[in-house]
């Protein structure tokens, strides 16, 4: 085991390690594997209690078609996309601007503001719940996709600003300095000089935020109640109330709900981890 590299161990240890890896992985992912297998079982298997044995038939197409035709799952997924993507765009816009300001300018309230953004990021949702719901109701944003987007964008701006500010501060300040001396306007410095340099940070935040927003359940419960705006997390919960004991359908729905963030993670793995581990390597 670490810190000794495995290739310096005996051949026996190496083989043992190579066997242990997949075994550990299967145990670790057992819940997921079970759900995947269940999602292609037939209703007959479920009713006869064959949850863990070999499926008597493979109903991949039937089950996944069924959840789309018998339930508003497609609508839920579409709603989730309608919430997630605009939120990412909006929150990244807010935090690029704010992060830049906090990283590059020196003014009295700089650190205070920065800390408020960080602190806001950690507050429990419950302390915001009643007023935010109230605000949404009184402005007609309750039970709309827009209402969710605005709240998420505002709340996530805390974390994203923290991230952006630290990223921009790590850039060589001389670049900005010399641009200023040449008389380039502040906005053009931000737009033409800094923004291209923070693309990796934008990518990292985008994937990370995708997961956060997609998986949000609390606000989907508090700010939405109709199917027309309900994201997949809250939708899955309400379908669970209908699909009593129909675990093959619940499993298939769960897999679909999990798929987009998983795909996102796999496609953008490097960015994802870069985003997540911010701060874990320094300080």
């Amino acid at each position, binding site marked *: 085991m670490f810190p000794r590299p495995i290739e310096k161990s005996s051949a026996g240890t190496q083989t043992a390690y190579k066997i242990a890896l997949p075994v550990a992985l299967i145990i670790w992912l057992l819940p997921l594997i079970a759900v995947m297998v269940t999602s292609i079982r037939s209703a007959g298997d479920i009713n006869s209690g064959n949850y863990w044995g070999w499926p008597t038939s493979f109903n991949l197409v039937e089950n996944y078609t069924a959840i789309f035709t018998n339930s508003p799952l497609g609508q839920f997924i579409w709603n989730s996309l309608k919430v997630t993507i605009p939120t990412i765009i909006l929150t990244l816009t807010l935090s690029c601007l704010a992060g830049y300001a906090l990283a590059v300018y020196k003014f009295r309230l700089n650190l205070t503001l920065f800390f408020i953004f960080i602190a806001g990021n950690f507050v429990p949702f419950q302390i915001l719940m009643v007023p935010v719901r109230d605000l949404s*109701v*009184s402005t007609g944003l309750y039970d709309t996709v827009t209402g969710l987007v605005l709240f998420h964008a505002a709340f996530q701006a805390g974390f994203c600003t923290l991230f952006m500010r630290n990223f921009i501060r790590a850039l060589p300040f001389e670049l900005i300095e010399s641009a200023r001396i040449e008389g380039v306007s502040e906005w053009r410095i931000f737009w033409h000089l800094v923004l291209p340099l923070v693309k990796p940070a934008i990518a990292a935040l985008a994937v990370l935020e995708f997961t956060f927003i997609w998986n949000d359940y609390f606000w989907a419960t508090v700010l939405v109640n109709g199917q027309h705006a309900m994201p997949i997390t809250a939708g899955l919960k309400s379908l669970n*109330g209908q699909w009593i004991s129909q675990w093959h359908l619940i499993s298939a729905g769960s897999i679909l709900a999990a798929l987009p963030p998983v795909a996102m993670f796999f496609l953008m793995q490097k960015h994802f981890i870069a985003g997540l581990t911010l701060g874990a390597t320094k300080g």
Partner: protein
Amino acid sequence: MTTFFKRASIAALIAAGSMTAASAAELVINFDGTDPAPKEAFQMVIDKFEEAHPDIDVKWNLFDHEGYKTSIRNFLTADAPDVAAWYAGNRMAPFVEAGLFEAIDDVWEDNGLNESMASTAGSLTIDGKKWGVPYTYYQWGIYYRADIFKENGIDVPTTWEEFLAACATLKEAGITPITIGTKYLWTAAGVFDYLNLRQNGYHFHNDLTSGKVSYTDSRTQATFDRWEELVRPGYFIENHAGMSWQEALAPMVQGKAAMYVMGNFAVAPLREAGLTDDQLGFMQFPSINPDIAMAEEAPTDTFHIPSNAKNKEDAKKFLAFLTSKEIQGEVNKILGQLPAHKDAEVADDKFIEAGFEMLANAKGVAQFYDRDAPAEMAKAGMEGFQEFMIKPDRRDAILKRLDKVQAKVYKDK
């Protein structure tokens, strides 16, 4: 605070067009029946309604049964439909008091409902006004496996002693006498209500749910004594706190349990799961105290027009349509329940007929614990019932706690 939020700067944040404006001809109905029977019944009503009123376009929002109870508070204030399903009795009181339901005496007046729905009129009246229309009601009682009773030589019990004896026989035969799923709590209230109605009668039920007698009162204690006679020997199914009412049907279908204290809506899923009418029986909850007149539990389900509705005119048309004699008969036939309209045809079905007969002779009809008691009391009470069914030893502590909640809840009223 609201004015605070209405500052111009905030308004700028809000994207225009986020609110959906309903056109005059659109009628939005929120309904909580995702189970097959209610879904089918209302699809039928809506199809026929659209046929009769081609100019009205019905938009139907379906909610799952448990989730709806939370959602309604939200949508009534924020995004009200034109018609919303709900329940009669104290359960609608908070919405009436908050001015969220519209008084619809005119609907009652214009359609002769005062006469045809006289029996349920009282449960929809607050401050002398009508706040909704009933569309169905259903009896509660004990559904049992007639074939299992027969195999074990059990006759339908009519007294408490016979009932206990039947439970003992079943238990001995390795069959769970009573199945129940208390995960969502209200099923336990059904058992409590019947024990209480039989032990202390209809007026006591009303006194308790309106806070006039305490939970530690000797009469309430007597109800719990009876309950203990079922809980201590293990006559209820194990792990009931982990099951919804639907999940608890399975043991009965599989023949592992013999009885279920339930409403008549349980018949449809039981039949669908394969039980024939020969296997499934219905009995009135047995008498406990012969001096107490038999009152029954028969909750009424209702429709209301929210005050914030956009299309009240068509909503009234819909309520009139729904409460007409013909539709009442048809919709309740599919639901497997009793029509609220007195002249409507009662379905030719043994459970509905049994219920109809039982209720016709009932000395008082209770709505349900959680519809007669205020919400906060109901929540604490039902949690207490569930806890008692699992930990009967804590009875004293539970009842004292309920007294505490009672003192608080009714003081605010």
